[in-house]
């Protein structure tokens, strides 16, 4: 069964790709069937695990064996990976089905479905790995699929650029992950999770020497692994690819850039909790980066106009939550938020896809508005997603997000308070931008000039049904699973898959604190209604007066421009310099060309002696003779 979960999507991908000769419909059916089957099986595995604690580690075959470096292809099922299995296959199944409707008119549908399945396979390979090398395989594999899917509409230049950007920024992250793995192998002699985790306590005090800096080994490993996580999970400084990745078809954004791939970084940190727990510094760095990302992305999301980009920044921001949750040691809550987030964020993305579908591929929310009667189902489903995202009481986001903030607060440390306050403030921003999106898209005046209101239409059932499933998840997943993940049963459930160095503190923060966030979030609804719908002049005036701030946010803190300036341009210049000045003007000039020039020069001189005149030869002979005699005398 475990094998089937992993390999069915791969099989689907291959059959889907080569089955295009049998028609698009065949491809769709095959890929959907295999992924759904995998989804059902993973739910069974998850259920079995929870009920009976029946987990295992299966070796498929040996991959690499070089001296002491051994890595297997493997399937490790434990609580952590079984949750990921459910999230990945479930969302993937729904996205597959949704894509049948969304990509209906695309000529390359089999290719699309095949990539989606291939992605699912890579992601599963990532989560079920029992060693770092297979993790790396999955890690780069999902990066590849993300590259292929972002660039799916290959005729668009912007899509190609976004795809390359995604891959290369991810590669920068992968660089960190790889270095982390190298360090782990060097100092632990193995890359198998269990073996590494067992050894960690023994070498917590080891220092390594880098350029005569003494660095704690565990901290160094953690920081490098975290760079990997930052790349994949689009954390601040390595986040730039995620908004651009919205060039890909919307189902891709829902699956890869919301629910699954981008959470791989969080997964990595949680998986490696036995290492991270021993590095206070690394955890603090994670908290700070997570906090900055949360607030940065939320602030940028406030002013964006592209519906998908708003949601993308929102994803970025929510990932920030997960990271600072892990950073303050709440790995289980981070996973819980990952779990609930998968539902409501996929719902929002697919919902926005439905809106875009209705507006015939227009994504600008300034061209929307007032269509909630035209698109009642989409409107309702998006409403559910928004409520869940903002943490409206008793929906899924409420349980997970508030748990993070409370946990951070109850840490009673500087870094914990930092995280808690950022969490609260970001929750407020989240509510504002989410409602801005809702109001501008569905309410107010109809603003589209190219399309009449009547032409907008509700999406077909094949798209709405997956949305409905996700909506159920967005509403209930928090309530149903809270005991299991973070409540009374959590210790039994997680077993050894998450490691806590210190006993978790279950003390509850004061009541006013518990109520503070929900009140803030709910009160954001009328506020946003007021500024975005009923009295828009206030907003216009505000932006008019704070042009600088507005542009700063609109241009995403100018980070892309800064990167262009400090990385892209200098690298190109360096390449050109090395090529023209280095290779051609130095090495070639003084090397081969220089030598041949000198040879030519000398031989030209030598030629002059062979003039045919006796006195030339006599002269040379004379010189030679005198040299010889001098030599003999001196000896």
């Amino acid at each position, binding site marked *: 069964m475990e094998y089937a979960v992993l390999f069915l999507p791969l099989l689907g991908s291959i059959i889907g790709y080569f089955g295009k000769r049998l028609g698009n419909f065949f491809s769709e059916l095959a890929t959907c069937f295999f992924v759904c089957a995998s989804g059902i099986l993973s739910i069974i595995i998850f259920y079995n695990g929870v009920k009976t604690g029946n987990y295992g580690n299966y070796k498929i*075959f*040996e*991959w*690499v*064996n*070089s*001296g*002491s*470096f051994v890595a297997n*292809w493997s399937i490790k099922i434990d609580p952590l990976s079984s949750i990921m299995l459910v999230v990945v296959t479930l969302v993937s199944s729904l996205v597959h089905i949704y894509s049948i409707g969304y990509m209906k008119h695309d000529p390359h549908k089999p290719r699309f479905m095949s990539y989606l399945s291939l992605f699912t396979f890579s992601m599963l390979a990532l989560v079920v790995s029992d060693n770092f*090398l297979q993790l*790396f*395989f999955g890690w*780069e*594999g999902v990066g*590849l699929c993300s*590259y292929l899917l972002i*660039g799916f509409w*290959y*005729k668009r*230049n912007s899509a*190609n*650029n976004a*795809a*390359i950007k995604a*891959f*290369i920024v991810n*590669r*920068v992250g*992968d*660089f960190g992950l*790889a*270095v982390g793995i*190298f*360090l782990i*192998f*060097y100092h632990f002699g193995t890359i198998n999770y269990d073996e590494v985790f067992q050894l960690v306590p023994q070498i917590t005090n080891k220092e*390594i020497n*880098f*350029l005569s800096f003494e660095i704690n080994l565990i901290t160094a490993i953690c920081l490098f692994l975290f760079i990997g996580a930052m790349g994949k999970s689009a954390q601040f400084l390595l986040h730039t690819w995620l908004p651009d990745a919205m060039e890909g078809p919307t189902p891709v954004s829902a699956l890869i850039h919301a629910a699954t791939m981008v959470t791989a970084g969080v997964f990595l940190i949680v998986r490696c909790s036995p290492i991270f727990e021993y590095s206070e510094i690394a955890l603090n760095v994670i908290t700070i980066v997570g906090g900055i990302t949360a607030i940065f992305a939320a602030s940028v999301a406030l002013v964006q106009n592209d519906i998908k980009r708003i949601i993308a920044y929102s994803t970025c921001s929510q990932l920030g939550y997960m990271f600072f949750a892990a950073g303050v040691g709440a790995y289980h809550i981070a996973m819980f938020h990952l779990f609930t987030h998968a539902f409501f964020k996929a719902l929002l993305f697919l919902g926005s896809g439905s809106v875009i579908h209705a507006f015939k591929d227009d994504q600008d929310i300034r061209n929307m508005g007032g269509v909630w009667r035209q698109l009642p189902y989409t409107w309702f489903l998006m409403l559910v997603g928004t409520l869940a995202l903002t943490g409206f009481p008793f929906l899924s986001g409420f349980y997970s997000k508030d748990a993070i903030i409370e946990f951070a607060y109850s840490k009673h440390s500087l870094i914990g308070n930092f995280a808690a306050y950022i969490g609260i403030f970001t929750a407020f921003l989240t509510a504002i931008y989410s409602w801005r999106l809702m109001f501008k898209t569905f309410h107010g005046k109809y603003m589209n000039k190219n399309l009449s209101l009547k032409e907008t239409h509700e999406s077909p059932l094949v798209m709405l049904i997956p949305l409905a499933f996700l909506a159920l998840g967005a509403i209930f997943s928090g309530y149903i699973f809270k005991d299991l993940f973070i409540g009374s049963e959590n210790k039994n459930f997680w077993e050894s898959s998450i490691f806590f160095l210190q006993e978790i503190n279950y003390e509850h923060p004061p009541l006013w604190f518990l109520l503070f966030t929900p009140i803030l979030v709910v009160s954001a609804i009328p506020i946003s209604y007021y500024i975005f719908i009923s009295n828009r002049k206030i907003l216009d005036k505000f932006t008019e007066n704070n042009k600088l701030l507005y542009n700063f946010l609109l241009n995403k803190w100018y980070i892309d421009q800064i990167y262009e300036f400090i990385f892209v341009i200098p*690298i*190109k210049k*360096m*390449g*050109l310099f*090395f*090529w023209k000045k*280095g*290779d051609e003007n130095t*090495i*070639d000039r003084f*090397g*081969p060309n220089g*030598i*041949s020039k000198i040879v030519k020069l000398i031989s030209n001189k030598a030629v002059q002696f062979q003039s045919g005149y006796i006195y030339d030869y006599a002269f040379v002979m004379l010189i030679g003779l005198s040299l010889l005699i001098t030599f003999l005398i001196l000896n």
Partner: protein
Amino acid sequence: MNFPILSSIIFLPLLGAIFIFLFKDDKENNKSAVYVSLFTSLANLILCLFLWSLFDRDFSGFQFVEEKNWISGLIKFKLGIDGISILFIILTALIAPICIISCINSVKERVKEFLIAILILETFMIGVFSSLDLVIFYLFFEAGLIPMFLIIGVWGGPRRVYSAFKFFLYTLLGSVLMLVAIITIYWLTGTTDLVEIYKIRIPKEYQHILWLAFFSSFAVKMPMWPVHTWLPDAHVEAPTAGSVILAAILLKMGGYGFLRFSIGMFPVASEYFVPLIYFLSVVAIIYTSLVALMQEDMKKLIAYSSVAHMGYVTLGIFTFTKQGLDGSIYQMISHGLISAALFLSVGVLYDRTHSRLINFYGGVVNYIPKYSLIFIIFALAALGLPGTTGFLGEFLILIGVFKKNYLIGLLATIGVVLAAAYMLWLSKRVIFGDVKNQEIKALKDINFLEGTILSVLVIFIIVFGFYPDPLLDTMNVSVNDLLDNYQKDLIHHLKAGK
């Protein structure tokens, strides 16, 4: 083993070449020349696979040793292979028929002579990888220059003469020094038999200078920075098959030389010069990756990327760790497959449009989807995607490097990011994007022959990416031996020094 299987493998292609030489020069014969050479090279491949099946993986030392007196008392014609050289022999035997098939589409003039050159080259290359005598090795090593020189000089592009001479000048300069070194070794030890020399051990005080002499030859072949500039020119001007052989096999002679000769004969010097090698390799990786990024010519880009990839190889070899050496050998085999595949792919486009300029293309995927798929697979393999052979080699090497030096490891890992940048940017500009040129619209997708050879390479690249065991297992014992001997030699010399 009585049947001289190694000599047969070496001289079978030569026999085929002689046979073709006897043909008359006309169109009809050109076709049969292709068949004959294809048949010979395929037969040779089968013979090699047969050799592989006979090969004892647990045996340490050289197998299938053949020994004959050549110049009595002075030079022996001694052949033999171990787990390292057999892989290179198989690679050579695999690439040769692929080159011959690629000629069918791309070489239009003097087909017969071209095939002869390739077959003779095959003989020399296999000879290099199987000789156990320094003189024999030198002869094969240098003789390989001549057919390659002709391939570039006769069938090359417009600047072929300049490139051919540049190629010749560089390689000859290095090899002259190697010859002097070989003669010195003969004076020192009284033999040129490699196995004997291993036993006798060259005195410590001579090692450094001799190492440098061998290094000058291998570094050029590799090529290492800063003696790499012949490679881009040679590649650009060489015909497709020439580029393929050059990248896939000739470059590997340098790496093989380091393994077999530098480390084996001069352990003290090898240890001494590690910083030099590390420095040059890291510069090669970063410098040439950056240069590759800015290239306008596809072949030049791939050539520069080869230099970067070979930088990893030298790094790995001189870590003297199991992973580093395994990785280097694996990387060489992998690069042999991938660079061959990339040059063939460029050749496919060049045959159709006669342009290698990146700017000329764009939007190719709209008209030749099959080709584009294969090209993307190769590009991904070249940038080291896990699941292809390109990944494992680099990963193992870097693991080895990290054991030795963090800084070098970090710098070398940056190359992985740059590789992604130049390969993907290349793919984007050639395969995707807008159609810039009317000629693109008339492109025909790959035909059966091209499809066959490219798919063969795709299969190898992916299968060995997921299941490298056949290769790693073959070289396992030999690499362990190499390291053992190296350590023993070092200890011996250390003791002798005291």
